[in-house]
């Protein structure tokens, strides 16, 4: 038996020797970018929502694109907007064909638009779809969109990754796309040439592409469900690139460590989206605005940004970053101040007990926070918040739930605290605010307890169709200031998109949308 123990020890010792070393695979074909994702591309029908957006963006293109400064021409060379803001005339490029040889023209645009409108309920989150009065083929390369009301984010929404992207009408089934399509012929720089479900997909450069040709021949999209497997594969040289946001592709601790090691290149985009905690104004404890305000001061955001997120994201003083349109309002930031938080809670009648928790009329100050259990980052942040709140005598229960159960809870409003993530540029602020009016969203449920919720929803509806810039600015100011004063959100940090890649891979950049990956700009350094 002694020998048995020795063997056991020897094995454990081997395990202890776990340390990292790099093995160079010199023989890598430089004409193919291998990208690993935890998800399959699924059905990339551009008019539906079940596919991966990054893949949809590779194959399908829109009339205009969103850039950091403004909306720029893409498949449409130029456009005119009528003075009342209700008519948009687009002059299309004449040198574009779909990859199946079909000509891209106003007729194709109309057929795509009709297919999208045919499935209106599925696009309910997007106001533009509901506002289209008619869409007209003026001549072969001129297309006109007529709206019911003026709608200021029209161009921005036309440039989103979905649904206003163009698929060859030959791929339509029964003249529509709502129940599936026959193929994926787009106009984009990439063609989907191979797809083994749950294994990999291969995108080949479109040699007849009207714009700038992609630098490499292929993009191989590998599906690896476990994040550690992805990192090990990167270490082995099997993959070239990891790309993603919100901790769904790469653990932030690993990201920082890889950055320090210097074996790979790590990149971060500008701050893109808001990560915030919703405080439910419709629940017994959090309906009190003083309690909500106290919670704002109780969470040490700086420690979350620096400690938990390793400084990869920046502290959010307000819900929307002041760099987002209409959001530079000079709202007062609420800095971490546990004393002030305690003071506010004392005033609200929640007194500290010997047990270290607060009570009011024998009732304990207990709150609940729910997070999505397959997001390790939300879990860590929740645990941190729980700790901060315990310091001021608030007992926070945190519960991880699967995505669907989590979304159910948003709809039912059965939460005190809940995560709220904005979609980031170019969706912020209009799409984010717009979603506040939908009862199935946690934002709506959390705001129901506000005195002026009806006014809030009406103002959001009005400002979308307000044609006067200054008027619109004033309305945004009113809405965002009200939400800020009511402390419905605890802004935490502004998230960034992150990428890790091998040093040979160059040209890794970010699009404004965190959901897109600009593969076409990437190339390998010649040796």
């Amino acid at each position, binding site marked *: 038996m002694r020998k048995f123990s020795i063997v056991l020890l020897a094995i454990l010792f081997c395990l202890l020797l*776990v340390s990292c070393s790099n093995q160079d695979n010199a023989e890598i074909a430089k004409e193919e970018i291998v990208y690993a994702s935890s998800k399959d591309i699924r059905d990339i029908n551009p008019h539906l929502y079940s596919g991966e957006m990054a893949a949809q963006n590779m194959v399908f293109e829109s009339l205009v694109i969103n850039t950091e400064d403004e909306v720029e021409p893409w498949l449409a060379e130029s456009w005119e907007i009528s003075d009342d803001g209700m008519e948009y005339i687009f002059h299309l490029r004449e040198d574009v064909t779909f990859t199946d040889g079909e000509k891209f023209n106003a007729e194709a645009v109309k057929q795509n638009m009709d297919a999208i409108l045919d499935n209106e309920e599925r696009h309910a989150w997007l106001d533009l779809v509901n506002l289209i009065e008619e869409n007209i083929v003026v001549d072969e390369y001129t297309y006109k969109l007529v709206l019911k009301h003026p709608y200021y984010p029209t161009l921005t929404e036309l440039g989103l990754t979905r649904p206003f992207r163009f698929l060859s009408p030959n791929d339509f089934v029964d003249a529509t796309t709502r129940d599936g399509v026959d193929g994926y012929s787009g106009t984009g720089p990439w063609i989907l040439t191979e797809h083994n479900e749950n294994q990999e997909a291969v995108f080949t450069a479109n040699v007849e592409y009207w714009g700038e040709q992609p630098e490499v021949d292929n993009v191989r999209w590998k599906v690896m469900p476990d994040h550690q497997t992805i990192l090990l594969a990167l*270490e082995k040289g099997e993959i070239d690139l990891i790309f993603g946001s919100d901790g769904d592709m790469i653990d932030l601790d690993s990201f920082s460590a*890889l950055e320090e090691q210097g074996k790979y290149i790590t990149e971060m985009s500008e701050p893109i989206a808001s990560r915030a905690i919703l405080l439910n104004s419709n629940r017994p404890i959090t309906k009190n605005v003083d309690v909500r305000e106290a919670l704002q001061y109780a969470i040490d955001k700086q420690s979350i940004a620096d400690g938990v997120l390793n400084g990869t994201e920046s502290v959010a003083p307000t819900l929307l970053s002041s760099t987002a349109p209409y959001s530079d309002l000079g709202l007062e930031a609420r800095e971490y101040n546990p004393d002030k938080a305690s003071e506010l809670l004392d005033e609200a009648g929640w007194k500290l007990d010997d047990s270290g928790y607060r009570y009011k009329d024998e009732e304990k100050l207990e709150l609940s926070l729910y997070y999505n*259990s397959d997001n390790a980052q939300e879990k860590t942040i929740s*645990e941190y918040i729980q700790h901060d709140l315990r310091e001021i005598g608030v007992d926070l229960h945190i*519960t*991880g739930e699967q995505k669907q159960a989590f979304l159910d809870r948003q709809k039912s409003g059965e939460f005190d605290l809940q995560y709220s993530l904005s979609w980031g540029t170019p969706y912020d602020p209009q799409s984010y605010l717009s979603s506040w009016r939908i009862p199935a969203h946690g934002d709506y449920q959390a705001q129901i307890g506000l005195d002026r919720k009806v006014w809030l929803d009406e103002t959001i509806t009005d400002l979308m169709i307000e044609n006067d810039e200054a008027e619109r600015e004033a309305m945004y100011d009113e809405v965002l200031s009200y939400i800020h004063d009511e402390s419905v959100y605890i802004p935490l940090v502004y998230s960034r998109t992150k990428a890790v890649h091998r040093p040979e891979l160059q040209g890794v950049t970010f699009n404004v949308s965190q959901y897109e990956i600009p593969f076409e700009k990437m190339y390998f350094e010649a040796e």
Partner: protein
Amino acid sequence: MGTLNKLIQNRFAMICIIFLVTVVLTGFFAPWLAPHNPVDVNVKEKLAGISTTYPMGTDQLGRCILSRLLYGIRTTVLIAFITMAATIIIGTLIGGIAGLFRGKIDEIIMRICDIFMSFPSEVMILAIIGMMGPGITNIIIASIIAKWAWYTRMIRSIVIKYTDKNYIQFARVSGFSRWHIFRKHIMPNATGEIAVLATLDIGSVILMISALSFLGLGVQAPTPEWGMMLSEAKNVMIIHPGLMLPPGIAILFVVAAFNFLGDSLQDAYNVKHRKRWR
């Protein structure tokens, strides 16, 4: 008791028992033994190495790993014990009824057991947790649903084996009630065999919790639990591979000890039932 002697003679089995008792005691006295509060967060010290303040370093939130490991005994081992205890109680009750009364009731119970036993336990547990959501209570419920039928069946056969023995037959003829016989004559004899069955399975419950944690369906944070700790350490495996060692070795040792003990008990009792196919 001959069986006990046999067990004592097996030195390694004794080591296992001593080890497991120590583990349980350590868990019991965790508040006095642990250097820190297991849920105290300190992000400035996160992922720190071994030091005098943190004998095993800290995790991704700067919590003391040693303290979490010690408190983790309470969660991990307790869940395993409760699961097995509850399963055995249910199995004994239903299996006892089936074995004592035989006939129609036995027939019905056995058919229901057949149905439940047709589902591979991994699939059953995964589906139930998936539907009911993660958390300690649900893990225990799911394991009981997945396991009770097998135990019922085993206990029934043990009961039948003893019922057929002469002295029990004699007691029956002498007019003792079924319940009396079950309590006074069958149970004391059967307890040992049931204990063997349970010991063999405790290890598998601990491994199952860790598998669920890997999928994000384990116990709720921030409860210290070994499976969850291992799974959290896995997230930083590339940069801090050593972090997987404390929870991993803890699981390895405790599971191995339970398995070995189960095997030795099986030898000692000379139980003929084959080990459950995990």
